[in-house]
């Protein structure tokens, strides 16, 4: 059996190369993934990040007008940051819940990208697997 020139091997090798090329093109065009940070890690990050934290205080304001204002604190730690958010608010959103929201730190306030707020279900529940 001649190993050399087997088309199947050629196809596999070429596809692996093609996949790697596509991957490289993607990462160079679309840039890297969004970092997920806690409020205490925010300082020094100018770009867009996912912020994960616990809602503290009473959320105030109108998410469909000037924006909903609340504070996010490290889930384990005291550092907190004010957040302003516009868009849909998930059903489970309220004080004490863990949430994730995308956005940028601007002048000490985390300005969220509209409609990116996601709440984590309370851990007592184990929704669908």
């Amino acid at each position, binding site marked *: *059996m001649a190993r050399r020139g*087997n*088309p*199947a091997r050629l*196809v*596999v090798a070429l*596809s692996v190369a093609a*996949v790697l090329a*596509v*991957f490289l093109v*993607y990462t160079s065009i*679309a840039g*890297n*993934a*969004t*970092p*997920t*940070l806690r409020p205490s*890690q925010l300082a020094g990050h100018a770009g867009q990040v*996912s912020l*994960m934290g616990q809602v503290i205080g009473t959320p105030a304001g*109108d*998410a*469909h*007008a000037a924006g909903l204002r609340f504070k996010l604190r490290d889930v384990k730690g005291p550092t907190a940051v004010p957040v302003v958010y516009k868009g*849909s*608010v998930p*059903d*489970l959103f309220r004080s004490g819940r863990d949430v*994730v929201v995308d956005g940028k730190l601007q002048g000490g306030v985390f300005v969220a990208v509209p409609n990116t707020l*996601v*709440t*984590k*279900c*309370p*851990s*007592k*529940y*184990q*929704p*669908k*697997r």
Partner: protein
Amino acid sequence: MADLGRAALVTSLLLLVYALVAGSLAAWKGRRRLAESAQNALLGSFAATVVASAVLLAALARHDFSFQYVADHTSRELPLGYTLTAFWGGQEGSLLLWLLVLSGYSVAAVLTARRVGREVLVWVVPTLGLVGTFFAFLLVFVASPFATQAAVADGAGLNPSLQNPYMAIHPPMLYLGYVGLTVPFAFAMGALLARRTDERWIVATRRWTLAAWAFLGIGQLLGAHWAYVEIGWGGFYAWDPVENAALMPWLAATAFLHSVMIQEKRGMLKVWNVLLIVLAFGLSLFGTFLTRSGIIQSIHSFTQSSIGPWFLGFICLIVVGSLALVFARLPLLRTKTRLESLVSREATFLYNNLLLVALALTILWGVVYPILSQAVTGQAATVSKPYYNFFLHTFGLPLLLLMGIGPLVAWRRASLRALGRTFLWPLAAALVAGIALLAAGAGSSRIGVIAYTFSVFVLASIALEFARGTAARKALGGVGWPAAFSSLIARNRRRYGGYVVHASVVLLAIGVTGASAYQTVREARLKPGQSMTVAGDRLVFRGFQTRMESNHRAIRGLVDVYRGDKYLGRYTPGKNQYFAEDQVSNEVAIRHDLLTGGDLFLIADQVNSNGSIDLKALQKPLVNLLWLAGLVFVGGSLIALWPDAREERRLAERYADAVVRI
């Protein structure tokens, strides 16, 4: 009662350990009697697991809150149906269901798949025993569903979003899929261990693989539908790790279903097939690990539990062990036939496999990226929708196209001239459709036009295959068209069932494209009497209506929908406020347009105290084809799975020597 449950689980564990140890010894030393007793131990473990499951079910039905599991997941007000389905509402019960399904599959597969030959079967039993031992071990020592406590007055209840008919059917379907992949995996390992590397293990487990794959597919579509009508954000798939966890093994299994046909027909790709089933089974274990370990951020949240490390260890054992075995058997897995041409049926199957595996692996990369980046840079980072969408387009669209090409290309070697003839009509149809789409203004989304043009091409080539086959059958038998058509399918169920499944995938692609690429979204704050427009439909807000129910307050916005002057009806998106759980749930209103297949999807985003509503309206063209695809998928799978007496006879002749009782 709990003692009975615990005893049953311990019995099951002991029997599975026996099946593993005695089975291996018997296979190694060639002891027939011992192999028989190992197989009986497998049967016994199934019986013991049934007893354990019955105990848990009975405890749920009797509201026996001395069972921690019952107290944690149900309450007295919970309707009986949801009380029983809470069986798989939590971790311990889920693991028990896993073991129940696994031991059931094991028994059924071992009893029905004797065609594989005795020397393979004796190795299949300990392999199944190994997987079963792992789950029984977890249930006995790490996460027992039979933990007891001082009985409390009432249980904690079930999450409102799980109090839903989909809860009853979606998780078991996924289990049947996940766990079902154990069967082909065990037979593959059995074949390797027995040094029988021909295609028998594939033929013997064909239906099991197909069934597991179909269950996994249906389970995911049900999950998508659940998300669409219940969760109420207007979508059906969010590339969440838990959703991906089910999609990855399905993609790997899809690749496996295709590539085994090449091994059956041409004896090629032996190593590849074994690797694929290891990948599929490994991914299904990994999916369980993901959802059970809490290692990855997900909108689905799970109890942080202690079973994560166990799972990781078991996955490593399975992957390393089976790869070592494949490596050791490499000389036996050499194939004599070669790919003759890059333009042949085999080659298109190979391309399809590479695309499917590439898609599965890029999704896997996205899922584990947060863990990897945490480990490497010390900071977790996540990839988001654009990443997944990019690769879905890059690998998914060529896959769609291949579905139209593959079935029409000849085995071994196809001439370009013949190809031109074959593809004339599908190409013409696709061309016409493309031009029509552009003329109709579908050019707003380039991906959309490509997807739809490819879809028409595939549908046309499938129709052509059916038409040609029927015509040939009619010419042969001298019967009418309907009789020729049904005998065509009956004579080659796998092939034509496969085409029907292909058609369902095209419908799925059309639905998904319509709902994503051509969706219109409008949001507005409306006072009573004010209106907004979405894709030609005028929505007039008429105010709120509040109704008190036994466990919640239902607030509904009254929205009248008009198209031109025509009144289409009143739709009532709103919110339910649950008292006991202190939770709000979004209740969407959907207007299905059966004529166009589109949906008008209304969400009451915010209910304001001054009587106004923040209304979100989504116009989703063709989205209902997605659900139709589910029905067609079930139909196609059933056609392919249906017992076929003619095929059985053919196989019985071919493997006459192998059907030996052990």
